[in-house]
Structures are given as C-alpha cells and as structure tokens.
C-alpha cells in the first residue's frame, strides 16, 4: 500500500514500486484521460503533470511518486466548468480522434504555467515528444495560443477555477 496524491486527493493504492503510474491511474483510480499509446515513452499520449512538470506516466514508476502531487486532465476542469486549456482546445476544435489530446493539453498546461506567453517556436519545441496521427497540429498550436490568452483574462478574474498550480 502506498499513498498517491492525485488532483488534490490522497488515494491508498496497492501497487508495486515498479508499476508505471499510468496503470494505476487507469486501472485502479479509473482516471482514463491519460491514454496508453505506446507504453514506451515515445508518443506522449500518457502525459500528466507531476509537481508542475509534464511527465510520461507510462514510464514513471510508482517509487518516484512518494510525496509528489499528480495532476491529470480530470483535475484541471469539469464538463460544466472546463479549464482554459480545455476550453481553448474545444473552441479551436483541436481534436480529431482525440487520442493524443489529453497528453497535448497536459504538456501545454505545464508550459503555460511557467511561460504564460510562449512563442510558436517554444510551443512546437515543447510539444515535440507528442505524436498526433490525425494531423491536427496546426489547430493544437492555435489552441495553445488561445489558452494562453484565456488564462491571461482568467487571471484577472477572482478565484479562477481549475488551476493545477
């Protein structure tokens, strides 16, 4: 048994030290936003945020999560109240099949948390580890820019929701 903090809640999970975080999220906690793409750290679809940094959960052993705060897409916003990054992806219609999108959103979110106005170059470089077989890259780029603008205005409002900070 170990304690895993996900989206602000503590869970007691029965997992081996060398079990990848992705399996625990999907199989034990039924948090299915993070996707299993390759299981080899080569596609980015399983990306979540751990202590503010984007990590590939399929190659992230539980032993490294002691005392860490995990954020998944479910932790950013809800259907009723989507987070800026989610709204931006919807408004730009960035998803085709959508398989890569949660991973893309999580890494973009981590980027925007440390750089609120990234350039095109920076977004491209940051999202480089992510594959999208549908080819919606241009919309994804636009969505990240839009999210940056949304967060900018959201920051001005009181009690912005869905921050992973």
């Amino acid at each position, binding site marked *: 048994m170990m304690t895993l903090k996900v989206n602000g809640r503590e869970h007691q999970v029965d997992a081996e*030290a060398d079990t990848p975080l992705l399996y625990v999220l999907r199989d034990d906690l039924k948090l299915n936003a993070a996707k299993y793409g390759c299981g080899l750290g080569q596609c980015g679809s399983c990306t979540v945020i751990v202590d503010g940094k*984007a990590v590939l959960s399929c190659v992230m052993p539980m*032993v490294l999560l002691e005392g860490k705060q995990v954020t998944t897409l479910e932790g950013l916003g809800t259907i009723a109240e989507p987070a800026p990054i989610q709204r931006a992806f919807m408004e730009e219609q960035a998803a085709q099949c959508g398989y890569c999108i949660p991973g893309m959103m999580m890494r973009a979110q981590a980027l925007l948390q440390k750089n609120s106005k990234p350039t095109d170059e920076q977004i491209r470089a940051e999202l480089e580890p992510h594959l999208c077989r549908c080819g919606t890259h241009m919309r994804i780029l636009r969505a990240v820019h839009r999210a940056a603008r949304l967060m900018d205005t959201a920051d001005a409002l009181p009690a912005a929701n869905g921050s992973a900070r």
Partner: protein
Amino acid sequence: MRASTRIIAGIVAVVLIAAAVAAFAIAWRPAIAAIDPPDPQSFDTALVKRGRDLAAIGNCSDCHTPRGAKNFAGGLPVPTPFGTIFSTNITPDPETGIGRWSEAAFRRAMRSGVNREGQHLYPTFPYDHFTNVSDEDDRALYAFLMTRQPVRAAARENQLSFPFNQRLAITGWKLLFLRHDTYRPDPKQSAEWNRGAYLVEGLAHCGACHTPRNALGAERVSARFAGGDVDDWHAYAINDQSRSPVPWTADALFAYLREGWHPDHGTARGPMAKVVSNLSSVPASDVRAIAVYMASVSGTTPGRAGPSEDALTRARTASQTNSVGASIYTAACASCHEGGRPLPYGGVDLGLSTAISSPDPRNLANVVLSGIDAVEGERSPIMPGFAASMNDDQASALLNYLRARFSDQPAWADLKKTIADARRTQTVFLQTSPAPRNAPADPQQREKP
C-alpha cells in the same frame, strides 16, 4: 658602474633585443591582400560539390552553425579552460566573413592558423589537424565556402583572461604544439587505410575530441585517441583502451558512422550525433576508409564479450541492494531495452553499452536526463528524457544500478555531482548545438521497422 657589470648588462640587453626580434619574426605574419569577393559562378561546380563533401567530413557546420543561426555564420560559444572563444563567420560576406580572402589566405588559415589580416587564430579552430589537408582539398573547401550565401554577422568578442587574450601567446603554443607532418602516407598499408589516415588525422580531426589534452589545451601525443572531453560529454577512448564491451570492427564502425547506430554498440548522440549526421551524406568510400583506419588504431582488443558470466549474480545483488534503481529500471528502461525490438526502434542491449562501462558517467547521465531526440525527417532512434521524472538521488540510484548490473566495472564516484552538472549543462548544450538533420544516404537502413 664597473666595466664588467656594464659588459654583462650589454650582453643581457643584446640577448633581450635578439629574443624580441626573434619572437617578432616568429610571431609576425603579413596580411594577405584583400581581394574583391569572387563571383560564385567562377567556381567549377564539381569542385564545389567536392568541397561540400569535405566540409561535411570536417564537420565544419558543428562549430560554425549554432542552432537557429544561418549556415556558417559562426557565433557558437566554445568554452575552454582559458575562457570562451566564439566561432567566426566563414560565409563569403566581404565585411564580416571571408569574402575578401584569397585562396592563399584560406590555405594559410587552414595550414598554420593565421587569418587574412595576419592575426594568429586560437587552436579551437583545429589547424593542428587541418595542417595535413592537401592543397587540392583546401581549394575545394574554399570553392564550397565562397559559393555559400553571404551572411552579415560580425564575430563576437572572445572572453579570455590574461595572458590568453594576447594573440602573441598563440605563437608560443604553435612553437610547442603545431606539427606540420602528423600525417605521412605509409607505403606498407593499403590505399584505403592511407585515405582513412589522411582524413582522420586531417580534416575529420577525430583526435580533437577523442584525444585528451594537456594543461595548455594541446592534444597529448602520448595518449592518442585515449578519450577526451567535449561539451560536457566524454569522447570515448577509441584506441586499444576502448571500453566497448564488444570490440569495434571496420564493418561495425562503417555502419555506425554512416547510420548513427549499431546494434552491438548503441546510438551516437551528443556532439557525435552531428558528426554521423554529416557523414551520412558523403561518399561511402571515405567513411569506409575512416572505419578501416580507425579499426586498425583501436586494434582487436578482446574487450569483454557481452555481459560477463556472473552478470546474473550481480544483477540479483544489485536489485537487492538498490531497490529504487531496480524499480526505476523496470518501469522506465526495460520496456525498450529488453523489449526484443531491434535498433533503431528498440533500445540497445545495455550489456553492450559503452556509456555504462565507461570510466566517465557523464554520457549516461546526459542521455538518461535529456533522452535522444528524433532526427527530423527520418525514422531514427529515440529515447525520452527523464529529467522531469527523477531528482538527483533517484537518477544516481538508477545509474548505480545500471553500472552494477550491466558492467563489471567499479561504481562511479561522485555521481550526484555529475547528475547535477548534467542537468545544468545539457539545457545549454541542447539550445546551442546544431540539430542533426541530414537524411541518411542509405534510407533503407532506417526505414526497416
């Protein structure tokens, strides 16, 4: 003043003046007259093409084209123990590049490290190797560079401390270390071997990274190819002290230099990634010649034929005593490195990894933290970086585990410091070093899934 004192003072003065005159004579180089930038059309296209291949063998773009910069416009900071030296603009821009250099001026720079104006150049420009380049090849290189797009980019001021900021100091260095005859054809060897020797000792300047340097920054003749430093990476020993678990053969070297990876050795990365990327586009015969020569230099050291007999026992002890390292390995590494998929898509069998048996842990730390980027436009080896997933303690637990399990070498000392340094330096390296981007000459090799 007594007569004898005066005589002694006189002699001393004469000797000093003579020494100064001699130093001046040795140090002084005349400027070579500026020319009007030659018309690019005036160069023979076959010559330009040969110059292009030679420039790739010489890896010129590695220093002269920093990431994001214009081709050959210079400006890469090269850190040395003496301060930072910036690479210069070698495009034919008349004001800031070499547009007003005659071929004679270019050849003099290659052969003796003096620029057109007569100033001595710092040996970060490896003229201690380029001195071996033939007139003919210098002519082709000149033709290639003079037909590039001129870029206006003034050289950045070097940041060197006294006395290294005095260009006169370079003369002393040259007196001590610049030899003009380090390559001589060996009639007892094949033409291919000699071609390889000519390239390796000359234009390809392999020793510039793979030979350790002395306190004055010169290659140590007595330790040729015994392993050196470059950009916070370790350039492996490629002589008989190579730690490669499987000895290198000419065939393996050829494939590695051409494709960037070999199943018995792994993947070229760090500064070597750029080298193999350049070599993928030059005539195969030249790469083969380099491989033949280097294989004879490294000899057929027995190496260690794969993981040694008691590997299993060691693995078991390693996982018992280092459970954090073992858990990380199982979740983060084994899926690719034990997945049974061949290179380049699967990971190398870690028992064959030189990074793990090397006396210097930096390459392993660099690659674990930063991964291996896919090469643009081709299907190439790829590995995710783990800098965001592990802290320094966890990364050292992993490296210790890998060392204990996959090599028969003693544990590395000071691993945590290495990892902390790697975290810092790799960010800088990845931002400034040019991305390997050339498509391989033989795409077949990389296309096979």
